[in-house]
């Protein structure tokens, strides 16, 4: 059941482009939250943490992503590529988590992010890709699990 097809590869590559740079930036953040490089990557060039809550939230997201999102992505993708049905379950779980934090960030950070990065960046790599990828894997994995795909 659920042999991976071209869509699985597209989602995998899209997922790597979307998630791995974020995880890399979060790793830099966790090494030294006050470094210029970490702040440039996470909040934008030349910007500073608004306050300690802002910094703590970014660190908390970083830890949660590294401890949960990254393993789900690696293990889920490996399982999907090997045709294991539970790989799709992990992808759906990760997809829902991505959609969940996309909604959170839409309410929490949209105004600031758009102000500093513009709508194009926001609707693509800064925020949008996470939502699109999440929705994509949920739909694809559900169809695969239901044995309905093509």
């Amino acid at each position, binding site marked *: 059941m659920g042999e991976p097809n071209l869509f699985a590869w597209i989602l995998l590559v899209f997922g790597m482009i979307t998630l791995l740079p974020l995880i890399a930036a979060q790793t830099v953040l966790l090494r030294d939250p006050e470094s210029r490089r970490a702040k440039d990557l996470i909040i934008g060039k030349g910007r500073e943490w*608004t*306050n300690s*809550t*802002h910094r*703590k*939230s970014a*660190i*908390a*997201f*970083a*830890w*949660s992503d590294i*401890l*949960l*999102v990254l393993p789900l992505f690696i293990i889920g993708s490996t399982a999907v590529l090997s045709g294991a*049905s539970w790989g799709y*379950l992990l992808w*759906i*779980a*990760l997809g*829902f*988590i991505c*959609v*969940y*934090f996309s*909604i*959170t*960030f*839409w*309410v*929490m*950070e949209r105004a600031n992010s758009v102000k500093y990065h513009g709508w194009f960046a926001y609707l693509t790599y800064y925020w949008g890709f996470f939502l699109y990828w999440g929705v994509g894997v949920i739909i694809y994995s*559900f169809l695969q*699990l*239901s044995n309905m795909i093509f």
Partner: protein
Amino acid sequence: MFGTPANEMIKNRNQNQKIKVSLGIAFTALSLISLGWIMQAYSIFDWESAFELGLQQGTFEGSELESLIARKEKGEAMADLILPLPLTILAFVGLVGRKFYGWLAAMMVFSICIYFPLFYLFQQLGSDIQVALFAIVMWAIPSMIGIVALWSIRNHYFQYG
């Protein structure tokens, strides 16, 4: 040869018992989680009253810092009502009807309910971790147990999905 029907009966009875226990665990976890969604729904309805009751930590009528906390919490509350709440309802309905979509929805609710307490834990480390501990006890641990319980009866749902 003579023992086969009896063994089958015992096996079926054990299987049914296992399904009942697993579903009981899943429903308990989902019920605890639902308390969280009720709390968030009330907060969206009347934020300042929820703040006074201690359901939220940030207020829009306080300092800039408190307002920032309130904005973050409101984002989480909105996300909870848009995604996990409908999923939780779907999980309840589907699990009652022994449908695959109910099993899947419950698993997804549980995965989200592990993510956000983990976030709270790291956010509150070194300061006030009561909220984080509350979220872990109320949602993360029941969710983990719920995942194990539902995974143990996955064959039942995949078979009839």
